[in-house]
């Protein structure tokens, strides 16, 4: 590998990733603590997260070794394989907590729906890189079909969160690329209609319940509204400076549910207060800006669209998780990148950022 590539690496992005990952680890250490009568016990989440981080770093380095443009060749094959896996899940998948999302291959379980997001992302980037013309009806519907096909199977599992993420990434990339005015306006009308249809036909009762309890958490404070109430209390009680590292009562005394995964931010908010939260949000914004700058500096359309897709991948995850934890959105099981504990999520995050670095460091290496 050419050493010149390293001189073009996106250092600000790496700095953001490092900082976020370390903050996440620190927070996870606190979130793993449980106060008992005779002291604090700390579970091993933060240690595992270190291991996953190292593995993720490995994945990142691997993605740097090849030219990202090669992905274009595999876009379709990858897409069809993922689709096949999704069908396989529907047939022989493992049922965990009433949802069939996992598939077991040679002792390793994984969720093909995670891969589906990446597959659709790469394929969309390839299809949009054809030219810079705003999308007409034909190409727009082509992309929609590509997005909805895996969505059908993912909704079947059922997994509303992942299918929603998938469509949001697709949508973000399409809007970034641009479409004809008439298509855009039609979408503005169609999306609310689809939402209504989803509410009455496509949703399960528990999903409706979540949305209702989001709108009025007081309805059922011990049930579905509990997450929202306790999370708001945790964050709000942090006030300006927070209660201090490992001093959060909401998390240490287990009032806060899911405190090392989806609601890890609430632990952070409680212990570091408004100052810490604004710092963290700023850091996330810098992180997104670093990805964004890679997207506009990319020397070809495919690379740029790829990074834009990844941008949206992170943007939506951060936005949805933050909104959910601070009570701006119903509870959806989407983790916060780097802050929430999660093995496969860490691997996927680092791999995707590997692609971003790959695109950005090759921005001077060829002429377009």
């Amino acid at each position: 590998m050419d050493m010149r590539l390293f001189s073009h690496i996106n250092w600000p992005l790496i700095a953001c990733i490092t900082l976020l990952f370390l903050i996440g680890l620190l927070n996870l250490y606190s979130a793993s603590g449980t106060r008992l009568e005779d002291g604090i016990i700390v579970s091993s989440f933060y240690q595992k997260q270190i291991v996953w981080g190292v593995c993720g770093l490995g994945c990142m380095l691997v993605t740097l070794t090849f030219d990202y443009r090669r992905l274009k060749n595999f876009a379709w094959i990858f897409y069809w394989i993922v689709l096949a896996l999704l069908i396989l899940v529907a047939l022989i998948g493992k049922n965990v907590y009433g949802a069939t999302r996992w598939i077991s291959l040679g002792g390793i379980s994984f969720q093909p729906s995670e891969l589906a997001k990446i597959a659709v992302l790469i394929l969309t980037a390839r299809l949009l890189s054809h030219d810079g013309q705003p999308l007409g009806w034909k190409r727009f519907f082509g992309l929609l079909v590509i997005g909805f096909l895996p969505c059908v199977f993912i909704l079947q599992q059922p997994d509303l969160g992942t299918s929603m993420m998938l469509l949001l990434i697709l949508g973000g990339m399409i809007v970034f690329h641009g479409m004809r005015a008439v298509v855009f306006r039609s979408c503005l009308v169609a999306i609310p209609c689809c939402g209504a249809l989803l509410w009455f036909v496509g949703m399960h009762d528990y999903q409706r319940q979540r949305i209702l309890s989001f709108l009025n958490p007081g309805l059922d404070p011990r049930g579905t509204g509990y997450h929202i109430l306790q999370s708001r209390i945790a964050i709000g009680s942090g006030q300006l400076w927070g209660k201090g590292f490992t001093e959060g009562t909401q998390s240490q005394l287990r009032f806060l549910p899911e405190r090392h995964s989806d609601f890890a931010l609430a632990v952070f908010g409680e212990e570091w207060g408004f100052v810490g939260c604004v710092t963290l949000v700023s850091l996330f914004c810098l992180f997104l800006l670093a990805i964004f700058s890679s997207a506009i500096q990319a020397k070809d359309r495919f690379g740029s669209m790829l990074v834009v897709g990844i941008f949206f991948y992170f943007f939506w995850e951060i936005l949805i998780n933050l909104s959910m934890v601070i009570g701006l959105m119903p509870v959806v099981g989407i983790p916060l990148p780097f802050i929430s504990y999660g093995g496969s999520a860490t691997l996927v995050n680092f791999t995707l950022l590997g692609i971003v670095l790959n695109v950005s460091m090759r921005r001077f290496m060829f002429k377009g």
Partner: protein
Amino acid sequence: MPDEQKPPKTNESTEPLLTDHEESQEHKAPSWLKIPVEQEQYQPPRGGVIFLQVLIGVFFFVIVIRFWYLQMHKGEYFARQAIENRMRQEYILAPRGRILDLHDNILADNRTAYGLTLVREDCQDLPSTLAQISEWSGQPLAKVQEKYAQDRIKIKPYEPILMIQDINFALVSRIESEIHAWPGLKIVVLTKRSYPERELFSHILGYVAEVNEQEMRKDPQLAMGDLVGKQGLELEMEKRLRGSKGLYEVEVDAHAKVMGKSMRDEPHGGRDLKLTLDRDLQEACWEALGTATGSIVVMEPETGKVRALVTTPAYDNNLFAEGISRKDWQELRNNTNFPMQNRAIQSIYPPGSVWKLLMAAMLLESGVGVHESVYCPGYARLGKQIFRCWKHSGHGSMDLEHALIHSCDVYFYIMAERMGIDRLEKFAKQCGFGQPTGIDLPHERSGLVPSKAWKQRRFGKQWVRGDTYNASIGQGFTLVTPIQIANYVSSLLNGGKMLKPQLLEKESVESRGNLPCKRETLDFIVNAMHRTATVGTARVVSRRDAIMGGKTGTAQVVKLRMAGGNRRVRTKDMLYRTRDHAWIATWGKKKNKSYVVVVMVEHGGGGSSVAGPVAKKVYQYLFDEPKTGSKS
């Protein structure tokens, strides 16, 4: 990876072939090994760039504003909520003070009992928990549910509701072995009140019972399930007896597991009350009254200390302390004999001839000479009306002393006519009638001293002279309580001091003023009482070993005699409700002991024939040597 670097270079060199790019790949190598290269110069779409920048900007501001709202604007509110989440207050009950008699016999005591509480926040399956409580306690499920529904609205979710009050040992051990399967339930130790003397002191002690909503609203220290005084001394001395509860601050986690406890306030037990009452004397009075309905007051005239205060019939106050059943309560309430009433302070009667003790004082203070006499022919005429003396044959010429000794009515008719009702009213009120004595018991009655204005107000009729006649011998409208009579007689003996009747041994004597009488007046009346008890109507109480004094009274309930009936009807032939009330107000002095004893028997008949013997029995207990020897 050198091969990766080369393709871009070759691409750059073969620029003219770019249009055939796809084809050339097919010839040279499998297409998936080639690096696809875009030809056109890439410029990011302007709209897209702006779109992303706006997205990031909006994201930042919306999220930061929301954090500001939660953490800064409503931060204090949520901080309070977080504390409420984990901090609970737990009260430590303070033992209620005991009530003891003069010789430290226990009149009201605490005993431990076991109760079952439910904390609804910790309860996972409420319906089956309630069903289980119903099974344990043997109460119907509907009743348990009703109790729960009533109590749950009054308290916070983490506060315990007392579901079963008093569990016996067999049940405690059964519940103890099963309770681990029922989160939210807990066996607690309660203190219960018990009254070992039962009926003997029930009117004085009153009782405690579970606090009601109204009382809780008035007193923030009270919490559900607390016992408070509802009647008698338990009510009157509530503050002193209750003491103050201790407070634990308990930190819990989300599963209600206790993390730590710290005591914020220590509990302080209530103070014991030592009464002036003497349990054995009380019992002797109780026995003296026997089955009669009435009351006895025994008082020390110098200090106002009440040594016995007996009322019959009585009720068992333990019923209330244990939670009275509906049936028992109905029975007590519907009893026409009113066993709940403390007759010594809450019942008002016409005083009858006992009132002459007051009349005598008034006459002397109004300048009537002790030798001034009135002729009693057995009646007095007032217009067409005839007012009879109790002795129809007449007393002959009577001065004040003899009028008292023989209880001559005509003397007082004539004298009262001379004085007028206004003076009588004023004097009676100055002597403490028509107002409570201030004894430390709730719901004391005032009695009634009639006046012209009162009659006008009450009946819309003018005061007539006949009313004055009646008032002079304690009939008509005049009403008094036995404790008022006892207090008045005490004042005569102690030199005119009007004292508050004392129930608490340790309290200092509390004076409420003086009788509007000179020393000679008092001495005269006391002497006249002594003569009455020696040769007069109160002979029945006379003793060789003590100096005694007394005055009897037979208060008419129905105006039989005044209606002019000539024939005296024998008491036992009359309907119970129309029979006369029997009074006797006495005092006795032996060595350094001095007592006032007032006996009142409702519808008993003659004062000397019914009340007198009762008083005699009381003095037998007080003054007889062998009994005092065996005591203490």
